[in-house]
């Protein structure tokens, strides 16, 4: 599905990522963990086209996408959410999800102005699909609310619905349960299972070890821009390098 091959990203003299390689298989839930500042979000940004990579290659379903424009990557079926929620705050929740349908729809200026049968059908389908996705993530009936006025947990859900509207094969979630209470986390975890069951591969950045261990098929651990471990959650948990990264050197 996704393969990252020896990717490095440098900001001036600072190496945020160094020779990171990993591969995510279709249907997996793949976790990316690591201490703060390890480069997880940087890797996400490189993968989704927001950052150019300094070196290395990223392949999405066989297509080289390093340094491709974000909208092209979305077009290849790779959508994401943001750690610091980036909704279109002054648009309604439903409009946010409808924006996500942009790449799946065609209506141009002429279609928008003339409103022929094709563009009217498309608009209706866009609306219906957006309603369905809102219901899928548990936001049924909240479509008219402003995105910025939704409760925090609902904003996270809305971001997922908006990303799903692009019909991704691979969905990258950047700390989707950050700041949530245990029962909300459980609900989100169920949502992720539901997503996987609907055939979407998940890539997850998360700090909640319990959630990662319970949910992910495989995890990779980043520390100071390097991958220090990868494998099944139980194995990674026991890896001395990982323990050291999280707890500091042996005392």
């Amino acid at each position, binding site marked *: 599905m996704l393969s990252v091959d020896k990717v490095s990203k440098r900001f001036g003299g600072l190496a945020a990522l160094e020779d990171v390689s990993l591969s995510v298989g279709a249907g997996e839930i793949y976790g990316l963990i690591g201490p703060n500042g390890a480069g997880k979000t940087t890797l996400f940004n490189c993968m989704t*086209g927001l950052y150019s990579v300094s070196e290395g290659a990223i392949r999405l379903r066989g297509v080289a996408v390093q340094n491709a424009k974000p909208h092209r990557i979305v077009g290849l079926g790779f959508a994401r959410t943001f750690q610091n929620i*980036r909704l*279109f705050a002054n648009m309604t929740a439903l*409009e946010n999800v409808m*924006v996500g349908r942009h*790449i799946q*729809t065609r*209506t141009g200026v002429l279609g928008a*102005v003339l409103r022929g049968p094709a*563009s009217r059908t498309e608009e209706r389908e866009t609306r219906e699909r957006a309603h369905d996705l809102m219901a899928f993530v548990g936001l049924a009936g909240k479509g008219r609310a402003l995105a910025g006025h939704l409760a925090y947990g609902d904003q996270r859900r809305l971001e997922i619905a908006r990303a799903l509207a692009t019909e991704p094969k691979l969905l990258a979630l950047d700390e989707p349960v950050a700041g949530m209470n245990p029962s909300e986390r459980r609900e989100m975890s169920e949502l992720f299972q539901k997503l996987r069951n609907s055939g979407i591969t998940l890539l997850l950045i998360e700090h909640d070890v319990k959630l990662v261990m319970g949910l992910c098929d495989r995890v990779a651990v980043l520390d100071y821009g390097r991958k220090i471990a990868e494998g099944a959650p139980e194995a990674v948990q026991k890896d001395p390098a990982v323990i050291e990264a999280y707890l500091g050197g042996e005392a």
Partner: protein
Amino acid sequence: MPAALRWLRHNPRIAFGLLAVLLVALPFLVGAGLGRSWVRVLDFALLYAMLALGLNIVVGYAGLLDLGYIAFYALGAYLYAWLGSPHFGLHLPFWLALPLGAMLAGLFGVLLGAPTLRLRGDYLAIVTLGFGEIIRIFLNNLDAPVNITNGPQGINLIDPIHIGGLSLGQTAHVFGIQLSSPHLYYYLFLVLTLATILVAMRLQDSRIGRAWAAIREDEVAAAAMGINTRNIKLLAFAMGAMFGGLAGGLFAAFQGFISPESFNLMESIMILCMIVLGGMGNIPGVILGAVLLTVLPEALRYIGDWQRAMIGHVAVDPNDLRMLLFGLAMVVMMLYRPAGLIPSRQRKREFTAEDSVAEQEQASLYDAKA
């Protein structure tokens, strides 16, 4: 009165009917009540409404601050003049010249948009301001070595619009009613303004309009949702510029004379003020802003006459007063109605949302203490 308004709200057909009758009768009412010269003012109000609606696409919908918008108006006007005046000896019909002017302006919209794609906010404003001035200075100086624009003298004797056998430049008799040239242009401008409103409304509420709004709200998130931000921004520039070019062609035909002087920075700022005053992003607001800012300066001219009548000479030049009141109005607006006279749903929220949240938090704080 409010009861009557409420009744109209529940009977939109009757309300629209009354509005239509009012719009058709308006030039006669204005002409009879205020004098013939006010029909011309009415024409300009419609022209500016078209311009403001065009700029509103760029600034209000897509959030790209454009201070050189008047350049597109100028391009539309000059192309119309080149294609229909003795200057080059060409006399193309309006239905060819106007769309060509709009297309030329749209093309320049893209040309201006392309290098500014990475710029935002203030930086974009500066570059577009420069672009507007460059166009004006070119128009001023392109009379040598080859005389293209006729320099500061401008182009004269531009063909009026002919529809069928009817020249809008002369008084005509339609069904026994005598219609002067400003009356005829009023109806043409009215139809085109209504068309512009329709296009602007439909664009706003469409896939394209949502993409513009998304870019305005958060460009990075918009790109991450699959929007080709480059193309969608260029489209906003092009669409806005096309309306500007169309209005420019109409202006040239209506005036019969254009010169670079009509397209200075002050005009760009005026149009931007119309949008800000009326309510950015909101079509009724933008139209109200355009009408107010066209009509009020004309009304201020009476102050000169009053002064002459009261004290025998003009002590304060109405023109100076105009700018003074303008500045004052803007300051008052920013203080009391920052989102405009008729704010759009979204802008209103942007300007009030945080305050109301803070207030609520403050209120609940005291609840807890009690």
